[in-house]
């Protein structure tokens, strides 16, 4: 137990990543504000990025830690994709706001059956 607390290892990163994922999903589920949902999406993406870096560093049972920095590279790709995604999402919100006068996602239901 004391070992688990004193040395940072893979599970610690996974717990942080899991908490981020949970926070992100619950944000997406509870917010009606489009920007809030976007923030939730970013949290989920960051959780994934942390997993990539952590698994790259520690490997997992049976798989040795990678000597290269592939995981870090993926994390950087995620950051770049997140930036692109955020700009596209914000552009959509802007147009949505121009049409509806609000960014409440519950009002985006013109296509509902």
């Amino acid at each position, binding site marked *: 137990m004391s070992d688990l607390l004193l040395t940072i290892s893979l599970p610690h990163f996974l717990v942080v990543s899991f908490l981020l994922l949970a926070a992100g*999903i619950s944000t*997406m*589920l*509870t917010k*009606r504000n489009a920007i809030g*949902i976007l923030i939730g999406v970013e949290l989920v993406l960051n959780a994934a990025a942390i997993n990539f870096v952590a698994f790259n560093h520690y490997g997992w049972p049976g798989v040795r830690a990678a*000597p*290269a*920095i592939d995981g870090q590279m993926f994390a950087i790709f995620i950051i770049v994709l997140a930036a692109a995604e955020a700009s596209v999402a914000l552009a959509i919100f802007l147009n949505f706001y121009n049409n509806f006068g609000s960014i409440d*996602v*519950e009002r*985006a*239901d*013109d*296509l*509902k*059956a």
Partner: protein
Amino acid sequence: MTPVQAHILDLLAAATLIPLASALLLLFAGKRWLGRLSGWVATLAMAGSCGCALAALSAWQDNLPATIVFEIPWIPVPGQAAGYLNLGMLVDHLTVAMTAMVTLIATLVHLYSIGYMQGDKRFERFFAYLSLFTFAMLGIVVSASLTQLFVFWELVGLTSYLLIGFWFERPGPRLACKKAFVMNRIGDAGFLAGLAILYCKLGGNLLLPAAGDAQTPSGVPIETIYQTLTAILADENASILSPPAWLTFAGIALFCGAIGKSAQFPLHTWLPDAMEGPTPVSSIVHSATMVAAGVYLTARLLPILTPGVHLFIATIGLVTLVIGACMALVMTDIKRVLAYSTLSQLGYMVLGLGAGAYNFALLHLVAHAFFKCCLFQCAGSVIHAAGGKQDLRSFGGLWRKMPATMACFAVCTLAIAGASVMGVGLSGHYSKDGLIACMHNYGLALDEAFNPGGTTFPFAHIFYWAPVAVAYVTAFYMARAFTLTFLGSPREPHLIEHAHEAPLTMLVPQGALALLAVVATPWGMAFWGDRINASAMIVPWVQGGTEEQVGETAVEFTHHAVGFAWLVGIAGGVALYAAGTKNAARLAKLPGVRLLHTWFLNKFYFDGLYDGFVVGLAKAVAGLAWILDRAVIDAAVDALAKRVREGAASISPFDPDPSGSPINSVAFAAQAADQALRPTHSGRIRLYVLLAFGSAALILMAVLILVFAARAAGHAA
């Protein structure tokens, strides 16, 4: 490590981190708990930081040119010899002096803002941004490596965006902050490219070259970019004087970053527009922080730049110097006159750096920081008094109402014009005249280099004649601004009827800055000149520099050429504008002058060019894509659809019973399925999120159960 070095390191670390702490405090606790007190909290924090920096400066003066590099591992980089990208502090004379200058001006600007931003609804936030801005600049100044510098460099970009667009409810600031951001990004793309080239060639740790030899706190010598570079070049049988092409490319690319931040010629258009921000922001952006960053970077990198890059830098500086001064001549907005004047003065600094007048360029940076900050604060007080009006043509006669502001403005006008009598002068005199003397040497050396046979290379001489001419123009346009604002009789009496002297929180910083504009340079000369010569910047190919090296001829030339520039310029400006703009308007009607006047007034059509060319190009590409979409892709799809319909029509006679045919039964089945699934398409996005993640979780669980079951079965077997 000597105790003094450790002491200085601690002091500078504190000076850098205090503004960050105060910014975070204001950002999170400002509105709720501090309220109107925020201004004083931020100002006191800055004053503390300034105290640390000044203590470091005075400690440094007793200390000889040791350079301290302090490192902590930051990002692990596998495969590099050093293993890590390092976070650290580089402390040499340049760092110490820049930190003192930045914190001093930031403190005075904070104090000024308390008066100026009184009653603004985002009062606390303004101070948080301002402190963060200062922190970012200090971060640049103390950074040990180029990569770390780049991080703070971008932070300066971000905070300047926030400050310029502080009044984002109005369209002007919104456009201006976007423009500043985009222009800076264009420059930073170059910076990044230069960084990548150096990274590829030199490996991970890009420690900035320090003046003299660098060592760690424990006394171990450290290899900076300069040493790495010379070692690599020696292997390739090259040197910085006969460099490989990549080194020149890297130098030019890195300088592009400085072009963006310091508003040099092709990217200069953001600086005047940044006037849309609150006046305290203009006063700090134009003096100590943002535009100083580019000059600082260039000065830092000077030892690793090749002669080709030096010429490039000098040329860019020359163009900026001239066009800035020309535009400052005709602007009617008081803040814009000052903004274009900054442009022109930055041109002096960059030109000087390109020509190797290292210490005079930096001296001018410090001197300019003090008087330009003061000029902007005075302009802010005038605008405040005139109820927000900024047009020079409607001021006039304000000396009666605001004598103290007028005195400050007058002192700084003399300082920027470089006033001197019998060799004793205000700050601008020392730095600018020194620079011009160095330019004289550089011009002659260029002439020599391009024309060894003795025939004259006409363009080389422009490198010193242009600065000389601009010295006259500078005095003239500053006299114009001063005369139109303060002298004569009020042109719009109702405007200044209620004008009054600025409150004490604004007057005190103005006065302090005016005082500094007078005394800073003699002190700076003592510090700067001795230190820099003693610490022997390793730039042998750069000429100019010390006063001894400048030489008799250059000093004599400078005396004759610009000795009385300030007097001529100021007398001309006052004489022409004493009676308002009538005489000048008549002058502007003369045939040749008229053309120039139109050019200057339209800022050489740079904005139009960029709008027309860049935006036009983007629109043309978009139009082309639209045509492609319509003519090729849509046409293909339409043609395909037409074929399908024709095909369907041709086989329809073979389908005897439409209602019972197999095709129709597929369609009916699809319709039924649609009806069944319809309720799930409720248009409620959050339900979709729940469904997506819920089903992902269920699938994951199923997979895990299967895996464990398989493993358990394997064990059992």
